[in-house]
């Protein structure tokens, strides 16, 4: 009697647990970003019109993308992208601390920097963190060169090299 009841209890418990796991999986999947959200992740930006030291803000996956054409005498950095002889900084304009948009301060002697008002983080001209809570430089979005344009969302060889050498995180 007792063992039969135990058996029924375990059988019921087992099937209930299975159903529960299935339900949890379905719930998890329902919270996932939709395929349409995932696939809308490509943007092309044209660099030919850029002006030195003027910050352009583009939009990719809803995030602001900073595009900055560097002055000829600006210090070199492997984080820069060279297109048609000019050097560009292309980064995601969201502070790597908690995601506010840093502002761009123009100053003399290439001392331009990005400042985040949220918790006081600061970055240098190559968007490398110099002060405050940000844990890493501004991320570089996946890009592919195509003439004077960049396709954001696609991983070209230049981007892959940056990833491999740890200059940016995969986003």
């Amino acid at each position, binding site marked *: 009697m007792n063992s039969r009841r135990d058996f029924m209890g375990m059988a019921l418990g087992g099937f209930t647990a299975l159903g529960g796991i299935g339900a949890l999986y379905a719930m998890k999947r329902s919270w996932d970003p939709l395929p349409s959200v995932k696939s809308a992740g490509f943007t092309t930006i044209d660099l030919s019109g850029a002006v030195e030291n003027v910050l352009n803000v583009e939009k990719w996956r809803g995030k*602001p993308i900073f595009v900055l054409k560097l002055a000829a005498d600006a210090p070199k950095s492997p984080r820069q992208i060279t297109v048609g002889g000019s050097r560009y900084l292309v980064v995601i304009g969201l502070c790597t601390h908690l995601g506010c*948009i840093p502002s761009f301060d123009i100053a003399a002697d290439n001392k331009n920097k990005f400042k985040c008002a949220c918790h006081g983080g600061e970055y240098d001209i190559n968007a490398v963190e110099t002060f405050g809570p940000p*844990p890493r430089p501004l991320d570089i979005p996946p890009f592919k060169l195509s003439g004077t344009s960049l396709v954001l969302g696609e991983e070209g060889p230049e981007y892959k090299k940056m990833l491999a050498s740890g200059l940016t995180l995969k986003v």
Partner: protein
Amino acid sequence: MAHFDEKAKPFSHQWLNERLAIDTVKKVMSSEYWIPKDINFLWAMGMILAATFGLLVISGIFLLMYYQPDTAKAFDSVNYTIMTEVGYGWLWRHIHGVGASLVFLIIYIHMFTGIYYGSYKRGREMIWLSGMLLFVLFSAEAFSGYMLPWGQMSYWAGMVITNLFGGFTPDLAGGALNFPGFVEWLRGDYVPAQAFLSRFFMLHVFLLPLAIIGVIVLHFATLRIPHVNNQEGAEIDFEESARLYKDGKKKESKVIPFSPVFLSKDVFVMGVYFILFFYLVFFHFDFAMDPVNFDPANGLKTPLHIYPEWYFLWSYEVLRPFSFNIGLVAFAFAQVAFFLLPFLDKSPVVAPASRRGLFHIWFWLMIIDMIVLSVMGKLPPEGAWNIIGFGAAVVFILLFVALPFITKNEKKA
């Protein structure tokens, strides 16, 4: 089988009693639920909270009739439709905003009353823990509600707070504690967008209120057996006192029944509170509405200075002055620290803090520190403010670390 009187009139007292035991229920829940006499107006805060929650539900229902959880329409549905078109729409919105703010003021008073009189220990642990659960649920409710008008503060608070769930930086523990994908999963998108607004809308108007109602019932249930504390922390013989009261010796008895005696006192305090409440609703509602949130959400522009509502400032400031990983740990600690109170206080003494020596100092230091944290959280993160904020955050953590030591050797009062 139970006995049913065939002649009882449907819905008469006897008829209901035979079917629902209403006399017993009434005794257990109110007329013989004994409350100590030796308490003060601070013991009315719980019922004030319940009443304020009621107002939030009623005003919320009317807001819900015109609010549209669509990123393109949400802002206008609140700021244009509800505020200017809907008859008395402004009233519901102001009640909702003022209520959300005051509910936290009263929660803090309620919590610190409990801490002052030692009402979280010696049989009252479950009351405290269920209360803290309510605090966490109300925090989630207020945060999700703040997303709904889809203004600049909604968007950027949503961005910053969901980013906290990305875990630690990838260089820590080989990246095992870094989960950026989790943030996108929470949002349902790369940034707060339609999927984000819809799911927070669901949480705000259904799942969280449902959970809150459930935990309020639990909170009330945890009170029934240990009973509420009193101003002296005295252990009362409830059976003895109840007998005296029922024998008509009300003067000698140390207790009064919850209803109607205690409730009538509650209602008086509530009356005073609602005068203040509606004064704010009609004449000073603006304190509960951040001007920055009257700009529609814009993912390409962060407001110059972002800060949470006043009731989250202290925990936000525990996060802000540290480097990324330490800040995350400190913030997580601040969220759960008060849950630990019954276990960190090693003293068996239940008495007002004023009679508990070192604990008395601890109590006021904690209040002052939380006020300092709140003020610093609102100021921009610059210069001296950074240093004071950092100091206050460290003091907050140290106060919890010190608690077991200062209460261990406490002498019986």
